[in-house]
Structure formats: structure tokens, C-alpha cells
């Protein structure tokens, strides 16, 4: 056995070294070079700009608490929601009373912001996502908020609803995933819309 070990130790060390160079240096370097060349925007985080300032990523959600904006999903990242530097979810069990209390508090907050809305609340608006950075809400969750946002911004609710419906991302290839709306992009477009006071909606 010791003979065998003595024989194999050198190739083991050299193989580790050589394969580390190939898989740990060459491979990521080649992928990075090609990625930066072919898809520089995606490789760099799909950053969105407004007036020359980076305002976020098209793929990472943000926390919106102002009733004049569409709200995203609850986020359980620590120490504050939508912390893009520390992703994570609640990991609460459905049998955990703390989870049910958290959901009820979210329901209450939504009702407070829009007391007259009789519609049931879509589940994605009261449950924390896995990453804590979910950039999307369901179309139902956006429609649920249309009345509130329209009132705050002085827009016509029916037309705002149609405007939101145009921004639904469908299932990919018609099959994959769920229909969804990117909250940050929706709110950026909303700001643009109310700034130029589009007659379409006013």
C-alpha cells in the first residue's frame, strides 16, 4: 500500500495543479473574455440607467414602499429587504406561526394602502421570494395595485390597467415559466409616463 501511495502522490499533486490551471484559470478567463466581447451588458449585471445614473439591474428587484409606485414581492434578505449584496429567503416553514403572522402583516399593509380594494390579494404579494431579489410580480399582483397607483398619480385606472397589461412578459417559447411583470422597469416607465404627461392616459 505505501508503495502504491508513493507512486501516486506525485501524479496526484501534478494533476491537481495542472487541472486547476485549466479549470480554474484558463476556463473562467476564456468565458469572461468571450462574455465581455459577445454579451457585455448581460455579463456586467444588466444594469439600467436613467439620466446617466445607474438605477438598478433589470434582473434584480428593489423595495418600493411609496403607494405611488407598484410594489414588488416581500423580501427576506438581511438586514434590510432587497439587499443585492446578500441574497436569501425566509426559510420559514408553513407550520411556523411566525410565517403566518408575517403574511397577515403584509395583508394588513396592502389593505391600509388601499382600503377600498375588495379583490383577494394575489399570493405572490404576501410571500417572500427565494432569492429575496425577485424582480417580478404576477400580472394579477400588478392589476391588484392599479387602483391605488392610478389614484396617487392622477391617472385613469382603466387606461392604466391596459398600459400595465401591455407590459406583461409572456411565458418563454409560449410554455416555460409564468407570465410576469418586471417591477423596476414598470415603475421607471411609470415615472416617464407621468413626467411627459401622456395624453393617452390623462
Amino acid at each position, binding site marked *: 500500500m505505501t508503495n502504491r*501511495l508513493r*507512486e*501516486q*502522490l506525485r501524479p*496526484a499533486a*501534478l*494533476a491537481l495543479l*495542472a487541472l*486547476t490551471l*485549466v*479549470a480554474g484559470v484558463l476556463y*473562467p478567463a476564456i*468565458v*469572461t473574455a*468571450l*462574455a465581455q466581447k459577445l454579451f457585455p451588458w*448581460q*455579463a*456586467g*449585471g*444588466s*444594469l439600467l440607467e436613467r439620466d446617466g445614473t*445607474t*438605477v438598478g*439591474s433589470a434582473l*434584480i428587484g*428593489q423595495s418600493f*414602499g*411609496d403607494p405611488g409606485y407598484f410594489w414588488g414581492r416581500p423580501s427576506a434578505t438581511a438586514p*434590510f*429587504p*432587497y*439587499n*443585492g449584496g446578500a441574497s436569501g*429567503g*425566509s*426559510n420559514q*416553514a408553513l407550520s*411556523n406561526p411566525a*410565517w403566518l403572522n408575517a*403574511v397577515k402583516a403584509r*395583508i394588513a399593509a396592502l389593505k391600509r394602502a388601499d382600503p377600498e380594494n375588495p379583490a*383577494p390579494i394575489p399570493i*405572490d404579494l404576501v*410571500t*417572500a421570494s*427565494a*432569492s429575496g*431579489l*425577485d*424582480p*417580478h410580480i*404576477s*400580472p*394579477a399582483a400588478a392589476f391588484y395595485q392599479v387602483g391605488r397607483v392610478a389614484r396617487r398619480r392622477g391617472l385613469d385606472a382603466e387606461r392604466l390597467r391596459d398600459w400595465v397589461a401591455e407590459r406583461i412578459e409572456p411565458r*418563454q417559447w409560449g*410554455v*416555460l415559466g409564468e407570465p410576469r411583470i418586471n417591477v*423596476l422597469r414598470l*415603475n421607471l416607465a411609470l415615472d416617464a409616463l407621468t413626467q411627459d404627461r401622456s395624453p393617452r392616459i390623462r
Partner: protein
Amino acid sequence: MTQNGVLQIVLYGVALLALVKPLGAYMARVYLGQACGLDRVFGPLERQFYRLLGAQSQREMDWKTYAVAVMAFNILGIVALFLLQCAQGHLPFNPQQVGAVRADSALNTAISFVTNTNWQNYSGETTMSYLTQMLGMTVQNFLSAATGMAVLVALIRGIAGNRVTDLGNFWVDLTRTTLYILLPLSLILALVLVSQGVVQTFSPYADAHLISPVTDPSTGRVLHDQTLALGPAASQVAIKHLGANGGGFFNANASHPFENPNPITDFLLVLAQTVIAAALTYTFGRMVGDTRQGWTILAAMLIVLSTAIFASYAFESAGNSSLQAAGVDIAASNQQAGGNLEGKEQRFGIARSALFATTTTATSCGAVDSLHDSFTPLGGLIPTLLMQLSETILGGVGSGLYGMLAFVLLAVFIAGLMVGRTPEYLGKKIESFEMKMVALIVLLMPFIVLGATALALAIPAGTDSISNPGPHGLSQVLYAFSSMGNNNGSAFAGLNANTPFYNLLGAATMFVGRFGVILPVLAIAGSLAGKHRVPPGPGTLPTHTPLFVGLLIGTLLGIGALTFFPALALGPIAEFLQVSAGG
């Protein structure tokens, strides 16, 4: 459950099956040393490797030499990865200036990645430098996968050989696996992932200026900016799935939009984490000269897997009905995913999350696109049970099939006992030595998993880490050791496992769970290689029939489900009863 959800699952199944034969045949060429096309590109590099490793490096190995080579290589890998984490604060490619990883955590992580477990007690974006992610994590993603595949190929050569002592050469198998299978596939997948939005950069984290500042509810502080963690993620994510490794670049793993930005990437990652393990059954059939044998094993795997997928999908779609009373809409429609969305991403919804959760635990991948801790009680039972079936339902790359072949031998042995004949498999008599090794493989895992779980539940160092009350707390601990003992790596992640107790006990569990199986597998390979191939006689049990598929599934479930049923009854099943009773 929706029609569209079922369609997504069927689409995955079709894509997987379509790839089994071409990829499996290609891998057989790689392991038989035949021309495979890519050798024209990588051939010179391969020969350079062997020159570097020395004249001895290509010599045939008997099983003991093969085992020594595997162990030497893997232990050196553990040492290297441990040291890298301790030294990262002084090394380059560390734009966020993270410091050394705590020793117990670094040891756990080193063993975790080398054993293909990829259990993570750390959060990638706050703990590891870009250099550690590339030189350490990415490298071991390749090498642990290649190790598993090499051991499988050695076993196949043992089964196929006729009175030989040699099982091939570990360095050659390792090199050819990496250069001809894992690297090319990863390169392609990584670039596709980047095109969809997975990040790949050495730049420091980005800063975004919020358009609507928000108040941090816990501190009352007003936040104006958002930090966006970046890094060379795509290159690591590609191999993390292809190699059934599963260790996320970021803490949220494949639920993080920078690792898995949309349903197309999710589709590709689910396919990637299962395709090599599935195709290896075909490789096996080719190498033993009877492809029906491979298809039979794959059929058994896929029957269990598809049952699990649809069960999980049903449980998660049903969700938590108590929310309806509180005024929440949980019904699935074209307007919303519905179901249990706690710990799930809107873009994936229920069907993709259930598909991902079952395939990641049926294979030993362990990456997650949703949080298993927040699954419904029975929805969470499925991934737990899949791991407890010794990671044989596809399983890890290589490790899944060599584990399954141990159960095949057990099934053949049981059938032999029933009819009173010496059991044989593919012309090899299965005798006392092989059965002792099989018994070791089959019993070791439940022993360490249940033993470690019991210990953790008996002392405060174990129970203090539990984050959810009631039976679910037990499920968290059971899940953790089922995951580590079977080298899966996923978690009921509420459990605070970054403590010296969990780090050290977990490290031992992962090490034994990996090499405690590899060594007996190689011993079986060596023993079978030395035997005569006998032609099938009238008493030979055919191992390519639907009857054998049933026998194999029965053996698997008999051992796996019965061993763990008592523990599952105290965890997920008790929680299910508690929730249904409204408590």
C-alpha cells in the same frame, strides 16, 4: 396543477430522453479511448498532461492502485481548498476584500466541494473572493464530478472484463472526463447562460441609485442605494449543474436572478443537472456490450423520478389553504402562479420549482431555485426521501450509477435467493465478497445519516440551530444529514449550520458518505474483473426486462423507504398531520 405546468414537465422529459443516446455514446467513445472528435482539438493538451504526470502515469491500475490514486488526489484537493480559503484575504481577485474563512467552516466547505456535495454553510457573495470561487469552487466542481465518473468507469470495466486485474488508469479517466466531456459542455452552457443574463465579470460589486428611497423597517434608516453583487458566476454555474455539484455562486443559489435569470435558463439548468447521469446509463450499456441493460436501469430511475415530480407538483400547487380565509388568492391562472409561493420565484412558479426541487435531489446536484424549507410538509418530504434513496435516482454524475449498480447486485442476489440459484449479473457470479461490499454500501449511509441526526437532536449544540418550531425542526436536521450523507448539498436552509458542531460532524458525514462508498465499489470492481464471464444459462435471471425494473424499484424502496420511515413519520408526516388538523 395546470395544463401548462404538466406540459413543461413533459417537455423536460422529452429533451432529456433525446440526449441520452447521443451523449451516452459519445462518453463511451471517450472512455474506450476511441476518437471522439474533440481529441483533434484537445489531444495535444492531453498528451502534455501525461508527459507532465510522468512515465508511470498511464499504466493500467488494479483496484487498489486505482483507489489509492483516487484518495491521494481527493485528499490533496481538500487540503488545497482549505488553505485557499484561509489565505484568500492576502490573495488577488478579491475586490470586496473578504478575509479568511473560519477554520471549521473552511474545512466543511473543502470536504463539501471535493466530495461533490456542495453543502454550503457560507453565503457566496459575502464570504468568498473571486479567486476562491474560481481556483477553489469551480475547480472542485469539475474534479469531484470527474472523480465520480472515473470510479463508475472503473466499475464498468470490472463488470465487462474477463479474468483481468486492471480497471484502467485514474489519471487518464480524470483527464479525459475533464477535457472531453465536462469542459466543452460547460463552455457552451456558460456562454448561453451569459447571453440570458448570468453575470461573468471580475469587476467589483455595482452600486445603483434607487429611484424611490425606502426606509429600512428594522432600523428606520433611509436607503438610497442598492449594492449589486457580481462576479465570474456563469463559468461556475455551468459546471455546478453539469457536474451535479450544486454549490451556488451566490447565497440564493439558482433562485438568484444573476444565476438563473429566466425560465429558459431554468429549463437548461434542470436539463444540465440530470443529463450526464442519465446518459451514463447508455454509456454503461455500450461498455458492457448490451445497451438494454442501461435502458433498464434508466427506466427504473425515471419511473421513480416522474412519480416524485408530479407528487411534489401536486403538493406545492395545493399550497396552504388557510390563506384563503385571510383574503389571499392562491388559485393558479394565467394571471398568477398561485399555490405555495413562499420561497419561490414568480418567473418559475410552482411547476418549475417542483421540477427543479425533485431533479436536484434525485440527482446529487443540490442546487435550488426555490427554498425547500418553505415547501408544504409533504412537498418537502419528497426531496428528503429522494436523497435517502442513496442518490440512485439518476444520482450524482458517476456516483449515481455506481450506487444504483450496488442496488442492482442486491436485487439480483435477492432474486437468486428466491429461486435458489447462484446469482449472476452480466455473466459474473455474485458471491460472498461482492455481497459483503454491497451490504456495506447499502447500510453505511443510513447508519451515518440517522446516527448524526440522532446525535444532533440529543444535544443543545444540535438543537440550538433549529429555526422552525415543532416537527419541522426535526425535518431540518434530518434533511441536513440526509443531504450531507448522500453528498447532495441542498438544505432546509433555515437551519443555522455554520457552527463548529454542524461543520465538523457534517464534514465527517460527507467524507464517509463519499469515500465509504467509493472504496467498496472499487473493491467490487476489482473482484468482478478477475472472474470468468459465464454464458447465460436457463436459470439466469434476465436483467433487461420490465420484471427486473420492478424488482429493482422494489429493492430500492424497500431499503430506502423502510429505513427512513420512522424518522420521516416524526418530521414531515407529523407536520402534515399537524397542519391538516389546523394546529
